[in-house]
C-alpha cells in the first residue's frame, strides 16, 4: 500500500504565516517520507524551538519538540537508543547556528546516521524578527536597528571545514521537488546529513525573499562538471551568494559512522537489550 499525504496528517494544523517557506519544507519532508517507503512509526522527527520547531507537530510520525537549540543532542540519543529508526532533526538557523552551535559542530564530528534539516530564514522568526547568525551584514532588524554588524555564518562552508560529516546539502523551500530529492537522499545516506534550507520568512525578512532566491538558485546536479566528492569544488560553490546560489548535494562521501565503533549496538539496538536481570557480579573482583 503506497502512502498518501493524508496518512501523514496529524490533528494539528500549521500556524505559520501564509506563504512561509516552512510549508515548502514540510511538504518536502512529507514527500521524502512517502518515497522512503518505511512505516511511519519508524521515523522520529526531533525539533528545537522556533517557527521551524513546530514542524513535527504536523507530520504523523514519532516526534519530540525539544527546547531551543538542543534538537541535535536529543535526536542523537534517540538514534543511539534505537538506531533502527529514521531520525530527523529540524530547527531554525537561530536554533542550530546560534544557541545550538556547539552541538552542531560536535554532531558533524560524530557523523551519526541522522538527517538534520535547518530552516535557514536568516532571522529569528518566532521571537519576531531579530537578526540571526546568518543574517546578511547591514540588515536592519528589531535587534539591529542600525544594521547587523557581524559576519554571517556560512553553514555549508562551516560543514565542509569540519571533518567527520559525510553529507552536506542545501535546498530551497521554493523548489519542493528538488528539496524532496535532497531530503530523501539525506535520509538514505548512512551518516550525518546536513540539509541547510533557504527558507523565506515572509514576515520578517524582506531581503531574502522568494524572488531573491528564485533569481539566484541553481541545481548542482544539473551541472555536469560538478563532483560532489570534491571538497575543493564544494568550497568554491558554497562561497557564491550575490549572483547565484547553489542548491543540491555539495558533498557526499561514505565514511564510518559514530555507531560503527559501538559494540553494544552492533547486534541490536540498545532499546532491545534485556535488562531484567543484569549480572554485575563479575565487576566485584576488581574491588575485593
Amino acid at each position: 500500500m503506497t502512502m498518501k499525504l493524508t496518512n501523514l496528517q496529524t490533528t494539528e494544523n500549521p500556524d505559520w504565516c501564509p506563504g512561509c517557506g516552512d510549508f515548502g519544507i514540510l511538504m518536502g519532508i512529507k514527500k521524502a517520507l512517502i518515497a522512503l517507503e518505511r512505516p511511519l512509526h519508524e521515523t522520529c522527527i526531533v525539533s528545537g524551538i522556533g517557527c521551524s520547531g513546530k514542524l513535527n507537530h504536523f507530520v504523523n510520525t514519532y516526534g519530540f519538540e525539544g527546547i531551543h537549540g538542543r534538537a541535535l543532542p536529543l535526536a542523537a540519543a534517540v538514534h543511539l537508543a534505537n538506531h533502527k529508526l529514521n531520525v530527523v532533526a529540524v530547527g531554525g538557523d537561530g536554533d542550530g547556528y546560534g544557541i545550538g552551535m556547539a552541538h552542531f559542530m560536535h554532531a558533524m564530528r560524530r557523523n551519526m546516521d541522522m538527517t538534520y534539516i535547518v530552516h535557514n530564514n536568516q532571522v529569528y522568526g518566532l521571537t519576531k524578527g531579530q537578526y540571526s547568525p546568518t543574517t546578511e551584514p547591514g540588515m536592519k532588524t528589531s535587534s539591529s536597528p542600525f544594521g547587523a554588524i557581524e559576519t554571517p555564518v556560512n553553514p555549508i562552508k562551516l560543514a565542509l571545514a569540519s571533518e567527520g560529516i559525510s553529507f552536506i546539502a542545501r535546498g530551497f523551500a521554493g523548489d519542493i521537488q528538488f528539496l524532496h530529492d535532497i531530503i530523501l537522499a539525506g535520509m538514505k545516506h548512512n551518516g550525518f546529513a546536513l540539509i541547510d534550507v533557504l527558507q523565506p520568512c515572509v514576515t520578517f525578512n524582506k531581503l531574502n525573499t522568494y524572488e531573491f532566491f528564485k533569481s539566484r538558485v541553481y541545481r548542482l546536479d544539473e551541472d555536469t562538471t560538478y563532483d560532489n566528492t570534491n571538497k575543493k569544488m564544494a568550497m568554491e560553490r558554497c562561497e557564491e551568494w550575490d549572483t547565484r546560489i547553489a542548491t543540491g548535494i555539495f558533498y557526499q562521501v561514505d565514511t564510518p559512522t559514530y555507531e560503527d565503533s559501538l559494540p553494544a549496538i552492533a547486534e541490536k539496538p540498545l532499546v532491545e537489550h534485556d535488562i531484567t536481570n543484569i549480572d554485575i557480579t563479575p565487576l566485584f573482583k576488581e574491588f575485593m
Partner: protein
Amino acid sequence: METNRFQWKIGGEAGFGIMTTGLVFSRVCMRAGLKTFAYPEYPSLIRGGHNTYQVFVDAEQASTQIHPVHILVALNKETITLHTEELIDGSAIIYDPADFKDGLPTIEGKQLIWVPVPMNQIIKEREGHRVARNTIAIGASLGLLQCPWEIIEGVISDWFGKKKPHLAEENVALTKIGYDAVAGKYATFNYNIEARTPAKPHMVISGNGSIAMGAMKAGMKFFAAYPMTPSSDILGYLSRQERKMDLVVKHTEDEIAAMNMIIGAGFAGVRAMTATSGGGFALMGEALGMAGLAEVPIVVIMGQRPGPSTGLPTWTSQADLRFVLHASQGEFPRIVLTPGDAEECFQSTYEAFNLAEKYQTPVIVVVDKYVQESWKSVELYEATTSIDRGKLLTQDELNAAVENGAAYLRHKYTQDGVSPRALPGMEHGRHIASSYEHVESGATTEDELETVKQNDKRFEKLQTFLKTDAKGPVFYGPENADLTIVGWGSTKQPALEAVRMAEAAGLSINYLHFIYIDPLPLKLVQEALRKTKKTLCVEGNKLGQLEGWVREHAGITMSDHFRKYGGRPFYPEEILEQAKKHL
C-alpha cells in the same frame, strides 16, 4: 593493646601515588576481615599541593573518618606539621630521615613513636621509582600493626599482578622490606590487627563506584556526561565497563548536551543517566524541566561540592539541596533521593531507575564529594527489588489498547496520574513528546483548563508515589533517645559513629536519616519526628536547607542545628560534642 580499631593516614604531594597506596592499605585490612572507611583530601591540582588519604579501621563498623590518627605516614615534612593536632599519645610516625635533612619537627606534649624507614635509600639500591616509597610505607605500617604477612602479599600481588606480573614481584619484595624493617621492633605501639574471617565476602568501593554499579544493575544502557569533580569518576568507571557491560557511554560537548541526550534516550525507551556537579547541573536546568513536562524518565546524579561558582572543586558540601529541589522554571514533579553511604548509593541509584520509569519523571540522586570519593568496605551488592518498568507498553498491549480505533494518547488522564507509555518504533503508538504544554495526545495547547488538568495529572503521580513507594526517615541507634541527630546524605557517615561513641560514653543519642526528600513523605516524617525528644539537625551548609524544608512542609522546627560550610566533612567527635551541649 587496642585490637582492630585504629586510623592510618598517609600524606604527601600530589603525584606521590597517595590514593593508590590508601586503597591498597584498605584492601589489606578488608581482607583481614575488618571494616574500613577511607577518605582522601586533595587540592584542585594535578601535581604538588598537599594530599592525604586516611583509613579508619574497625572490627564492627567503619562508616567515617575519625579525628585521631594512630599511624601517620609522612612522605614530606608538611604532613607532620599540618596534622600534628590529630596525633595522640602513642601515635606512630613513619618517615624517612632523608626527607627531613633539617631535622624532625618538634612536637611538644605528646608521646609519639618515631619510626624511621630509609625508603629513599632502599629505592635507590633497587633502582625503583619514587612512588615505590609508598609500597615500603605500606609494609612498614602493616608490620607495625602485626598484620599477617600472607594477607599483605596476596593483596599486593593481586593489585599489580593483573597488569604486570614482574611489578607484582618487585612490589611484594619492597613491601616485605618495609614490613621487616619495623615488625617486632616497636613494642610500645599499642594498636594491632588480628585477622578475622568475615561472615560474608566484602569489597572496598567508593560512592561513585557504587552509583555506577547501581545504575548498571538497574539496566542503565546509556550514560552521557561531561567531566566535573566529584562525579567524573562515574564517567571514567562506566567508560571502562562500556564494552564488558554493553553500554553506550558518551562524553558530551557540555552538560546541556548530556542532559538532552539522556532525555532522548529515555524517550526512546532506554534507561539513561547523567552525573554532574552544581555547575553542570545549572546548565542542565532547562532540559530538566522538559523531562518533567514531557514525562520522560531520567536519572541524574548530582554530586555536590562547595559553591558558589567554581568554589572549592575538590572539597565537600551539602549546599545544593535547595538548588536541586527548585531547579528549572515552572512546577513539575521530581523525586529527590539523598543516599548517605556507599551501600545507599548503590541502592538509591538502582531504585531511582525504577521510580523514574514508574512515575515517568526525573529522579535526582543528590550526593557529595565526601560520599562519592570515600571508599568503604561493603558486602557485595545485590538488588533488593526487581526491575519495574512501570506502564511501559509492549507491542501487544499497545495493539490491544488501540483495538477499536482508539487513538493512543501519551498523556492520557488516569487515576494514578501515570499514562501508558509507547516507544518510538512501536506500531500504533505514534505521538509527539513536547516541551510545550500539551493535551493528552501531546498536541500543543494554551487552553487554561487543559493546562491546569495536565499539571494536576503530573502532580498526581507524586501522590501515587507517596502512597506506594516513598519511605520515611530511618532511625539508627537506641529508641527514644534523649537527643536525635537529624541529617541527610553523607551526614549519615559520621553520625553513625557519633551514635556509637555516645553509646560507649553512656549517652542516649540516636540518628534520624533522610533519603526521601522530595516529595517529602509528610506523615512518615511527622511520625518519626514525634518520636524524638530533642533534635539537632546536622548539615553541610550555612542556611539549614533540610531544616527549612522540613519546617516548611511538615511544620516541625528542630531544637537546634550544627552546620559546617568550609568544604570539610563532619567528624563524629564534633557532632558528639555539639550533641552533648544540647542534651
